[in-house]
């Protein structure tokens, strides 16, 4: 008699970190194809959708600059989450931290530094957004460290506060008086904009993002602090035993995580939007969670993954235009990717063997 035996792998093969993300993306793309096929009734539609998704976002004359533009906030939020996820702190508040960063930058650009003509304006505004995001990250960090309040709930709720706060401002006091009553602020003065490269629409933010990758990489892998985070993530008891101040580190990591999301919001304001408006983020903070996981918490990998995801967002917008496929399908797709990623993380830890009884 034969028996199927499921057993735990003793060692995870080296190629798994690459295989698992690819596997989960493939699965979700297949599911997406099936959905398109089922809803439109034509198999060729699914094929066309694939073609569109894999070409348009990556062709320079078409969507490439859009892709890179979207890649920047994804990279930054993903990087920030990499830091805290390594300690097993589940910050899902990058969206709120990004909103707060955008809000602070907007305040700086429209009111605080409106008439301050200086090359320092842009850096100051970026720092302003970064600080605001950091502040929004510190709150749940402190609550977690001192009251052991669940960070998932705290960060999630803070997202709503940030979101509605921004809504209040753009529907109310900050609304552009010449904006035909649309929920948006006035355009920022031009001296506050992040310089773009030619007419590509790609702004200097990309270099800031790359710089952050290097900084986060060094911080996480080359310093004692990064090592401490790893220890806390793997075994908090051991961390305390080794004399690591877990409370301080939790707060500090949440602060950095929030700072990077806040910076993403600031860059988005100064480089792309030039005004705060309703729904300016298609969920960059939430997608950042997927970016961090698909990169397997490796800062360098966030570059590639956020590029692909930028493409995914641009491609799906394109599908929306030419094939009338609803954007919610793409949101579902992103969800499926994370889902199958988490599932395969667990499933691949086992192997199936057929043994003779």
């Amino acid at each position, binding site marked *: 008699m034969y028996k199927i035996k499921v057993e735990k792998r003793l060692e995870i093969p080296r190629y798994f970190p690459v295989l698992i993300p690819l596997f989960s993306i493939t699965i979700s793309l297949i599911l997406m194809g099936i959905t398109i096929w089922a809803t439109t009734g034509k198999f060729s539609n699914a094929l066309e959708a694939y073609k569109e998704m894999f070409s348009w976002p990556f062709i320079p004359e078409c969507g490439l600059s859009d892709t890179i533009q979207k890649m920047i906030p994804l990279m930054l939020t993903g990087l920030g989450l990499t830091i805290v996820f390594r300690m097993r702190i589940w910050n899902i508040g990058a969206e709120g931290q990004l909103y707060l960063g955008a809000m602070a930058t907007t305040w700086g650009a429209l009111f605080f530094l409106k008439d301050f003509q200086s090359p320092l304006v842009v850096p100051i505004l970026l720092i302003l957004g970064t600080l605001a995001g950091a502040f929004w990250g510190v709150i749940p960090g402190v609550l977690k460290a001192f009251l052991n309040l669940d960070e998932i709930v705290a960060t999630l709720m803070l997202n709503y506060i940030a979101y509605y706060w921004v809504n209040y401002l753009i529907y109310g006091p900050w609304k552009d008086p010449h904006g035909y009553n649309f929920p948006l602020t006035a355009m920022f003065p031009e001296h506050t904009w992040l310089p773009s490269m030619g007419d590509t629409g790609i702004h200097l933010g990309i270099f800031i993002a790359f710089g952050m990758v290097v900084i986060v990489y060094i911080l996480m892998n080359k310093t004692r*602090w990064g090592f401490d985070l*790893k220890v806390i993530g793997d075994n908090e008891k051991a961390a305390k035993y080794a004399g690591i101040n877990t409370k301080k580190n939790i707060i500090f990591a949440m602060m950095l995580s929030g700072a990077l999301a806040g910076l993403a919001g600031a860059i988005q304001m100064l480089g792309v939007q030039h005004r705060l408006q309703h729904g300016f983020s298609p969920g960059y903070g939430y997608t950042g969670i997927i970016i961090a996981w698909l990169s397997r918490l490796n800062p360098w990998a966030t570059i590639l993954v956020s590029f692909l995801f930028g493409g995914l967002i641009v491609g799906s917008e394109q599908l929306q235009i030419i094939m009338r496929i609803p954007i919610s399908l793409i949101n579902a797709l992103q969800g499926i990717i994370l889902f199958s990623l988490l599932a395969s993380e667990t499933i691949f830890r086992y192997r199936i063997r057929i043994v003779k009884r």
Partner: protein
Amino acid sequence: MGPLLIMKNVVKRFPGILALNKVNFDLFEGEVHALLGENGAGKTTLMNILYGLYRMDEGEIFYRGEKVKIHSPSQALTLGIGMVQQHFTLVPSFTVAENIMLSTRRFEKNVSDVIDRIRKISKEYELRIDPNARIWQMSVGERQRVEILKLLYMNAKVVILDEPTAVLTPQETRALFRAIRLMIENGAGVIFISHKLKEVMEISDRVTVLKNGEVAGTLKRGEYDEKKLARMMVGRNVVFQIEKKPANPGREVLRVEDVRALNDKGFTALNGINLEVREGEILGVAGVAGNGQRELAEVITGLREVSSGRIIFYGKDITREDVSKRISLGISYIPQDRKEIATCPNLSIAENLFLKSKERTFWFDKRKILDTVKTLIEKYSIITPDPLQPVKLLSGGNIQKVVVAREFELHPRLIIAEHPTRGLDVASMEFVYRSLLEARDRGVAILLLAGDLDEIFTLSDRVVVIYEGRIVGEVEPDPSNLEKIGLMMAGVVDV
């Protein structure tokens, strides 16, 4: 009439150890049969098998003369075998009556009937409890009463009590003993697990002593006294002899002054403890596990706050210093739980060797570390193909070597070693012993919190006995004092 219950030649293996080796145990109606033994002797394992929580590898169980196979606690309860475990199994937000109904697994239409019956039983056994009170509002003693009521409600004929007095005040203990006597009057058999000699002497009709998974003997009331039981419980089996130079104690390194502290559950763990350790000596602290050893180690290393008292290190009060400060002062700690506390399972051997450091540098230079690690792996003969392997893939002995290597390489002035050889094979054990003795000869002060007396006698230059968070006496580490130590460990102070 034959026994109510017979367990015959029970064998249970856990990975790497033989937990129970052909254990025989029986119980008659109307008696209290105590299971006595040190921690790790196999008492709870044996009872978990009877209660269906573990499966035995070999052996048989007869209940009322019939052979039974017990696969689950609910099956055990159906038979009439119930157990009050050390960790209670009650739903905190439910009332007493609701909890009892939950465990009967029957839908009771008429709750007031249930409540009436609980009242009746609680009166009969003098276990005062309000059936409508909610569990979360109750003290530990009351919760235990609920657990016992639950078993009585289900007409359990065999009642297993696992260390029931560990969480009780003396008054509550008296009430528990009264209830136990009423139970046996009504024809139940009670199995009483304990390591406290006094209580065993008071309540039992028979005593079975377990040692290292084997029955050291079963004695009837009248055949035993405290001394005899103590000897059976801690009886010494020499594993190996190790050469030891006479100690050459120097300055006082550590002084613990009247320290009090709570354990994780909020009970008193250290109750005014005093001791001092000098350079170049090993102070052994003997005691049954759970008498405050862990808390003592944690208080000295800074992992646990004291409620009162002082900790002096080289004449300086360090009571308020944090863990990392104490590490940099030269306090090393080899905890009992090498996997839970002393290492990060998924980090590499190299990283685990560098978990602690005396000074915090900003940079973490992996290449430099790896060079040092290679020499450490050789020096401490850690057997591994690759220092970048996760530490969890190592054997217990090798993990312990990683911990020992790390703690020794910090060049400590005080080492706290808590049961440092638990679960190790003889070779690794000898390695740890030699390392500790070498450190001592270099002038390091060592506080040894050992589980078994063999270790204490092999290593210590002085021995103190800890009981319920207090030092109850000091004894020469001489084999002739074995019995005396055994009695002190079991709470008989006036020897």
